């Protein structure tokens, strides 16, 4: 169908986009091993000393423990509320159903700074102290959307005839859920949870407005990017996080199944 010229253009464009996507990541990876704190290219000498310095940094450890706590609580909250919302929207026809599904994607359709400053104003007005709790509230709001989207997408692809067959064969609502619906959507729930965790671990735009002075990994990176002498440590933390993140995201991709691009609708984020 496509002419030879078109094929060449398409393949060339594909290659260009792939290079564009991966060269920057490769360069950050190299700089993590750069001896000098400068940013000149080519890199003069290579060292692994920054990894040790990062590992011993008490700020990094504190930020890591905060990030893990926040991501775990936000993910658990999202798991319960996001799945429940997906079930409701999929199963029931009710007044305002369209509004509900619109409401649930609002956090990813509105610019991040709007959510950020909205939460910030509310926290201020209510007089809640900034800290882990306020970060979790912000993150969970996004994470619910991620789980919701993943579970809903799977529910839509699961034929309702399966549920009807189960009911016809005499299963009650709980048995149908336990033996038919749940196995069908289990991997979508896990994929949603992994993506929600990764998203929370990575979030900075909203976190900056809800964290106060509490450190998370992205906040640590944000604060230290501006201090040239700390940049190598930032590079190391960044690379470590990148490699750690790839594991859950890769698994989530596999679970969500082939062409289903689980990451697509997630990053509500920035």
């Amino acid at each position, binding site marked *: *169908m*496509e002419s030879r010229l078109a*094929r060449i*253009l398409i393949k060339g*464009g*594909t290659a*260009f*986009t*792939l290079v564009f*996507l991966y060269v*920057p990541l490769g*360069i*950050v990876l190299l700089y993590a091993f750069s001896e000098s704190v400068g*940013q*000149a*290219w080519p890199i003069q000498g290579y060292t692994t000393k920054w990894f040790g310095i990062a590992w011993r940094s008490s700020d990094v450890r504190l930020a890591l423990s905060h990030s893990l706590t926040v991501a775990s609580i936000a993910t658990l909250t999202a798991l319960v509320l996001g799945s*429940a*919302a997906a079930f*409701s929207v999929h199963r*029931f026809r009710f007044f305002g159903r369209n509004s509900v599904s619109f409401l649930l994607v*609002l956090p990813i*359709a*509105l*610019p*991040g*700074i*709007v959510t950020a*400053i*909205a*939460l*910030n*104003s*509310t926290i201020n*007005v209510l007089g809640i102290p900034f800290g882990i709790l306020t970060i979790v509230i912000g993150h969970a*709001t996004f994470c*619910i959307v991620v789980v919701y989207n993943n579970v809903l997408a799977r529910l839509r692809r699961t034929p309702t005839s399966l549920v009807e067959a189960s009911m016809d064969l005499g299963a*009650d*609502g709980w*048995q149908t859920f336990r033996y038919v619906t749940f196995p069908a959507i289990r991997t979508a729930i896990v994929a949603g949870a992994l993506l929600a965790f*990764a998203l929370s671990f*990575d979030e*900075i735009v909203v976190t*900056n*407005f809800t964290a106060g002075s509490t450190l998370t990994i*992205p906040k640590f*990176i944000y604060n230290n*990017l501006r201090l040239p002498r700390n940049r190598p440590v*930032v590079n190391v933390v*960044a690379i470590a*996080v*990148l490699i750690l*993140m790839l594991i859950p995201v890769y698994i989530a*991709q596999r679970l969500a199944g*082939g062409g289903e*691009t689980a990451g*697509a609708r*997630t*990053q509500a*984020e*920035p």
Partner: protein
Amino acid sequence: MAVTAERREGGAVRRTSALLFRHPRGKLTLSLGGPLAWFLVIYIGSLAVLFVTAFWYLDVFTSEIVHEFTLKNFQTLWENDVYRAITLRTVGIAAAVTVTDVILSFPLAYYAARLATPRMRNALLIAVVLPLWANYLVRVFAWKIILTPNGFLNWLVELTGAASLQLGRSNWSVWIAFVYLWLPFTLLPIYGALERIPNSYLEASGDMGARGWTTFRNVVFPLILPGIVAGSIFSFSLTLGDYITPELVGNTQFIGNVIFDNVGVAGNIPFAAAYAMVPVAIMAIYLLLAKRAGAFEAL
């Protein structure tokens, strides 16, 4: 004994199931109540607080927020040339980023959707999504390193010829970094739309004598337009709401920077809230237009 206990327990579960089956409203309340309450109280509640705050003002002498209705903030935004320029710059860059992302997305999306083997297609899709999960700040920082005057890009350009390319901190750098950040968001919906075009459409177009370009313009493009619009929602909205990228690689202010500074340094939250209404209004219009273009089905 065990059997009886089990049966009794099963009975309770079964009774509850049956009860819920007979009362779908109860079931709906149980499952939707939690998430809906969370969204209404926390999210919509916060947006309402933000909206109200936008009509308060900061007393410059006492640095206290006065809870009285005023349109002063909006008046400043409209009349002050600085803010008008910032709004136009932000919207302009957001549009430029969106167009660039769509153009860069098309070849890879087309290749993955229509030419690649299933294995290759999966690999490509994972390759597109993975960079999203590298920390956002790191991806911006990568461009800062690359675009710095004695950095990688300039080195590359100088290798090929006598010219040098020193973007450093500039709107060009902001543009490139944004294009990089949001590319996967535009690519995936376009891919989805391309994948759904039946082969027979393209064959029919070819059979009737249309060349590649004609087929693209009259068959492929109209069919993937909803996908393009769906993807553009993300790149447009994300650019409008970003303050970190301009801060790291740019030398001018964007809407987000003004909001951030007014929350942090200046403490003028009412003004920040008022300015935050601008991207909300722009996105509301954009989403309405997108809905008309059928983009929501392509999300």
